[in-house]
């Protein structure tokens, strides 16, 4: 029984963290139409940022600043934000497929940099031994996992509320206008370049938060955690859930993560041994098939974007 409960707690904790990353991507793609092909880099920036800033002393690479946890988490977000800003000012003129290719390249470069710069990131073996806040104090790993589960869920709810407020505000209207027709928006006095940069940085900082939480949860980060396949998974979640809809982004994260873990479990349990060698590959094929199926039968996702209409919100008060 406790086994099932702790597994569920593990499942929901990871799903919540992934949801935060998908929400960040939704701000960029769903609301603004920015194709970020390098999601893994921004998750990675947040994760490495947190571990380096908030971790304990490290003998042979950067880190060990032992920053107060919330500050380290924020620091990771800022690292992701700075990376996004740099990538942004260099690539915001590139649109659509060009932006996708450029950001994909950045993510590959980021991963390789982390893998090879032993002095900064511990190289291929990553950075171990992050002291998780309150872990020593709580003691019992089961109670700690409950505590962290509540923390991750709370962060998800906060990010969700923040984004819902944001996209229903005039800022959200601006993002949608840029997504729909940049030329028209510019002729109505809006500056597309600066707006796209803002959305790109904000979305990437949210991905950085997800990365920080991820590294906290595993108390460990390595280049293996930020492969291009992570970008693919986050995209799959958004497409299946419904781009442009924050509820859909979360639903997609839970669903795809569910399919992922369930199929992993099923394969290890029932598949013949030869097939188990390729379990990971089979899982990716499965996700790929789901994406193709969604695009064929329900391209707008499980929860399509809703039109903002005048009856909602503050009109009633006038």
């Amino acid at each position, binding site marked *: 029984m406790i086994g099932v409960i702790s597994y569920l707690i593990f499942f929901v904790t990871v799903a919540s963290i992934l949801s935060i990353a998908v929400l960040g991507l939704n701000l960029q793609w769903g609301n603004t139409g920015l194709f970020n092909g390098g999601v893994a880099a921004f998750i990675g920036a947040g994760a490495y940022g947190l571990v380096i800033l908030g971790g304990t002393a490290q003998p042979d690479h950067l880190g060990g600043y032992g920053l107060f946890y919330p500050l380290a988490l924020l620091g990771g977000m800022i690292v992701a934000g700075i990376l996004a800003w740099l990538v942004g000012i260099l690539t915001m003129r590139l649109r659509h497929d060009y932006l996708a290719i450029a950001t994909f390249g950045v993510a590959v470069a980021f991963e390789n940099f982390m893998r090879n710069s032993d002095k900064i990131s511990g190289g291929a073996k990553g950075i171990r031994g992050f002291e998780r806040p309150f872990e020593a104090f709580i003691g019992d790993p089961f109670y700690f996992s409950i505590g962290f589960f509540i923390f991750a869920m709370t962060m998800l709810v906060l990010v969700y509320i*923040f984004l819902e*407020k*944001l996209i229903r*505000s*005039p*800022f*959200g*209207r*601006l993002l*949608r*206008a840029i997504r*729909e*027709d940049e*030329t*028209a*928006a*510019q*002729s*109505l*006095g*809006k*500056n597309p370049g600066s707006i796209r940069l*803002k959305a790109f940085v*904000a979305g990437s900082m949210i991905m950085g938060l997800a990365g920080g939480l991820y590294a906290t949860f595993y108390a460990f980060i390595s280049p293996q955690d930020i492969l291009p396949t992570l970008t693919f998974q986050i995209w799959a979640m958004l497409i299946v859930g419904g781009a*442009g809809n924050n509820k859909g982004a979360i639903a997609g994260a839970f669903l795809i993560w569910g399919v992922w873990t369930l199929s992993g479990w099923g394969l290890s349990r029932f598949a013949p041994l030869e097939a188990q060698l390729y379990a990971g590959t089979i899982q990716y094929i499965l996700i790929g098939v789901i994406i193709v199926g969604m695009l064929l039968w329900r391209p707008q996702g499980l929860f399509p*974007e809703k*039109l*903002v*209409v*005048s*009856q909602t*919100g*503050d*009109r009633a*008060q*006038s």
Partner: protein
Amino acid sequence: MASDILTTRDLTTKFGSFCAVDSVSLSLRKGSITGLIGPNGAGKSTLFNTLTGTLKPTSGQVFLGDADISGLSPDRLFKKGLVRTFQIPRPFARMSVLENVMLSPAQQTGEKIFGSIFRPDIVRRQEQEYRTKALEILDFVTLDKLADQAAGELSGGQTKLLELARVLMGDASIILLDEPAAGVNPVLTQILIERIEELNRRGMTFLIIEHNMDFIMSHCDPIIAMAQGQLVFQGTAEEAQANKTLLDAYLGAPVNA
């Protein structure tokens, strides 16, 4: 001249070696409704694009009053009161009609991330103000019933009216309309003309491209004409109708004959 609000000097826009706007020098009288006519491909829309910053001129200048505005971006020109609509409408398709219109006001507090989260009172007050104004404008262009519909679902004529509504929502002093009546039914066209004249009485200057000759001849003064990138005529409606060269241009015959 002091009463000229928009002036161009030898304005030229080339696509490669092709001269779509060929050293055009014109001036718009403040408070006028100027009609711009010319055969298909004459360079009218390209002139609009060059005046409003969508295209950079190859050479020549544009002045707003005395200020040189050549090559400024469309968003900067919008803030200076120079706005335009597009020949092929560009609605924000997956946004409601009301949202399309509420986008226009400049300097919205809620357009900043900080403002949208931490200044809820100011944002709410502004939104109420914009919503009221937007609904008035939608009423003005007869789209009020469709305020909550997705702009992508409007008919061709309705999107033309939406384009007009969006520019009216900004505080423009000069409005450039590219074929506002194309695809709009005669009843709506009549309404459109009344609206334009009413706005004109309130002091707005218009430059209007139209192929509808009734529209041009009875409501625009002066009329200017382009053919093959060049300015070929400038005068009143009567003069236009009496002008042989102009009629030739419209029939596609060589200019300067």
